[in-house]
């Protein structure tokens, strides 16, 4: 075992131990840990990604007992790239948002906020790497609890109400997930994903009724947690009313962990053909199509900038489900690529929106944000870059992910590809409606008097520029990233 192969184990345990440390450390040291640890994990996973150029995916048994008896992690190029990207998003959003954390969260409870952020990152790393379904369920619970704590950390009326609605809906979702996992254990007797695949492969023919039920239960449970169309009521309030750092973390890091587990379940436990044969794929695509339209339509109607971004997050999540619904390796690569683009773009949008509201009297409605782009240059540029990337303008990530999805859609013959291409065009049109309207709004000449300008820290500006650089990298030089993802998906099953 090369030393770099310990990175998955170290990144999970490091997060957990640092979260323990933050609980007893004073606020200042805890905030430093919350900013530094995601960076360490990003570097470790980057090293693992480069090591995977000449390394085969390997299994990492947790303990002295091999796979079906003990837990185990499985690391491949796809998992390494995704955890490096999500750790980088968490690192940048926490550094950018730490200023607001100090202002909005009560003084003696900031170290508890750092405990919760580190636990979120630990849960997402574990969801990316685990090869055991019940470990996946335990870390789904950790991720749900820490996301609820992220939402109510600001402790004002709306975030408490939003976090309660979030918890009630997500706990129903994880109850359904556990029901699916126990039914799968009932028919296969295994909890390890590859062993499940072997015992399912023994039973030939179309997927049996319990297997179809398991797929439905897990898909519904995890799409409740990701905020797919019919189950997205909790999402706008949850993302809009928490501190900017936590809404960036929630929209870009937490929902990606559940999505990745669902893709892993489809490709590794059940196989894409069974998913297509069971008719689940068409159901997912149609729900995603509806979600795309309704999310964008809602976003146009919003007058609060944060709620607009949250509803656009509903649309982007259903964009990824649209790609997953196509059930081909290229479509899965497009889905994972768009997950990363959405992670970087959305966190930048939330944090630049908080910067814009700093210079317009702390309000988020369109009237007071007029001309905010001119008053706060960095936040205005970041917001424009993020908005334009989400609509899919060339030189930015959104454009490439739409191209990769349309290639994947054309490759799959049949009515589904035509529908996907139509939905792509329609969603691009709707995205431009509300995003460019907001971008034009922040550069329109503002009211005569300029409200008092709240000082913005250096950390905020530096991380915003880094985020812009990463988004530009995703748009222009991401061919190597895409090839790594393609290789990862081929080695994933």
């Amino acid at each position, binding site marked *: 075992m090369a030393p770099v192969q310990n990175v998955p184990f170290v990144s999970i345990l490091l997060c957990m131990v640092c979260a323990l440390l933050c609980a007893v450390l004073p606020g200042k040291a805890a905030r430093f840990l919350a900013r530094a640890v995601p960076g360490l994990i990003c570097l470790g996973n980057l090293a693992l990604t480069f090591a995977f150029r000449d390394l085969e995916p390997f299994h990492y048994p947790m303990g002295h007992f091999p796979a079906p008896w003990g837990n185990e992690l499985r690391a491949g190029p796809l998992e390494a790239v995704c955890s490096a990207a999500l750790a980088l998003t968490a690192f940048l959003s926490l550094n950018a948002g730490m200023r607001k954390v100090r202002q909005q969260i009560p003084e003696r409870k900031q170290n508890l906020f750092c405990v919760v952020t580190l636990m979120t990152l630990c849960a997402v790393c574990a969801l990316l790497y685990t090869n055991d379904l019940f470990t996946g369920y335990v870390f789904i619970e950790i991720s749900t609890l820490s996301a609820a704590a992220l939402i109510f950390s600001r402790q004002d009326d709306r975030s408490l109400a939003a976090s309660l609605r979030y918890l009630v809906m997500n706990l129903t979702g994880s109850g359904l997930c556990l029901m699916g996992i126990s039914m799968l254990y009932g028919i296969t*007797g295994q909890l390890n994903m590859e062993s499940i695949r072997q015992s399912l492969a023994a039973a030939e023919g179309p997927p049996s009724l319990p297997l179809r039920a398991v797929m439905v239960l897990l898909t519904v449970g995890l799409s409740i947690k990701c905020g797919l169309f019919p189950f997205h009521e909790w999402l706008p309030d949850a993302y809009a009313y928490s501190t900017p750092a936590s809404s960036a973390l929630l929209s870009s890091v937490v929902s990606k962990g559940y999505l990745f587990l669902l893709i892993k379940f489809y490709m590794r436990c059940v196989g894409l053909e069974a998913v297509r044969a069971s008719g689940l794929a068409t159901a997912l695509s149609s729900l995603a199509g509806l979600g795309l339209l309704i999310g964008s339509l809602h976003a146009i109607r919003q007058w609060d900038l944060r709620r607009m971004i949250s509803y656009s997050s509903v649309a982007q999540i259903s964009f990824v489900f649209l790609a997953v619904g196509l059930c081909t390796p290229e479509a899965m690569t497009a889905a994972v690529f768009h997950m990363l683009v959405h992670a970087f773009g959305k966190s930048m949008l939330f944090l630049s929106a908080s910067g814009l509201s700093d210079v317009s009297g702390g309000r988020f409605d369109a009237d007071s944000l007029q001309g905010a782009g001119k008053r706060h240059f960095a936040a205005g540029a970041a917001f424009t870059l993020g908005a334009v990337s989400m609509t899919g303008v060339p030189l930015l990530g959104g454009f490439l992910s739409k191209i990769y999805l349309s290639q994947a859609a054309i490759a799959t013959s049949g009515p589904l590809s035509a529908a996907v291409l139509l939905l792509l065009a329609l969603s691009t049109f709707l995205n431009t409606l509300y995003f460019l309207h907001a971008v034009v709004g922040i550069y329109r000449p503002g009211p005569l008097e300029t409200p008092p300008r709240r000082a913005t820290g250096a950390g905020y500006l530096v991380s915003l520029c880094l985020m812009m650089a990463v988004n530009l990298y995703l748009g222009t030089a991401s061919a190597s990233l895409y090839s790594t993802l393609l290789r990862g998906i081929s080695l994933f099953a």
Partner: protein
Amino acid sequence: MPKINDRYPASAHKRVSDWLTNGFTGLDREMTQAETPPAAPSAEAAGQAEDAFQEKARRDRERESDLYARLHHWSVTRGERQARLLYRFLAVIVCGGIVFFLLRTVSALPALGRVDAPVNNEVSYRYISRGPEETGAVNFVSGMILDYRAFDTLGESSVLFLASCAVMMLLRLDRDDAKGPVPSPLSLTGGDLHGDDILRASSLVLFPVIALFGAAVVLNGHSSPGGGFAGGAILGGALMLLSNAAGEERVSRLITERRASLAIFTALLFYAGAKSVVFYTGANGIPLDIPLGEPFSILSAGLILPLDMCVGLIVALTMYGFYRLFTKGGY
């Protein structure tokens, strides 16, 4: 179907409706005050712009509130009852559909209790046949959760730790932001802190028995049913009883905030540290031999006994912490 007696409460209904129809009651005036933007500097131009801004904001609020009033009027007169009935009817239909779908799936599952069920395969066979000699634990379940599948249980303890941090974020009253001594929101026993005599007398008698039983369950986790979680919960219950019996401030002098969080921190750190050593050595093939002792004795089963004690301590202090956070807002 018997009437679900959760009628829409008249009193809260009145408060909401009079807020909607005739503008703002006391509760809402101070809430909207908090939302108005800070006053602009006193220059003349800024003054007019400010008034124009206020005027526009006030007109917005007018338009908004009469929109709510119209919505409310429709809902009170006709829509509410139909909407609620439709919602209930739909909910029952959805739940019925789910239960029918699940029951149909269950009937297709392999039968219950049979020997040839796919669940009884080589995985569970090894836990039972080679469990005692590989983990030293006579109780196969404890051996499985603390040795074979230890990563789940490590995640499990961090769920408990995360929940205690989250509840602390919500309910802990910090000294400085609560002016003066922290008002105990309530003590369960009402006025005096020692509670009425029956509870006090019975708690004094019962506490040693329950604490002893809890400790026995924790210590015998590997050789009899029970273990860290069950024993910890019993010990947590015993601590709650003690705080009722011996009075809350005397127990909070014994278990202070600092001591409790340090104890949980060290227990979890030892647990995570010991387990990461086992994971690291297991994955990299480094042999690690922990003396397993001979079965059925207390000092057996290698790491499982200290881990059970750690888990017992964590669960007991967390449950007691929840209780104190709810009743007193702090340890």
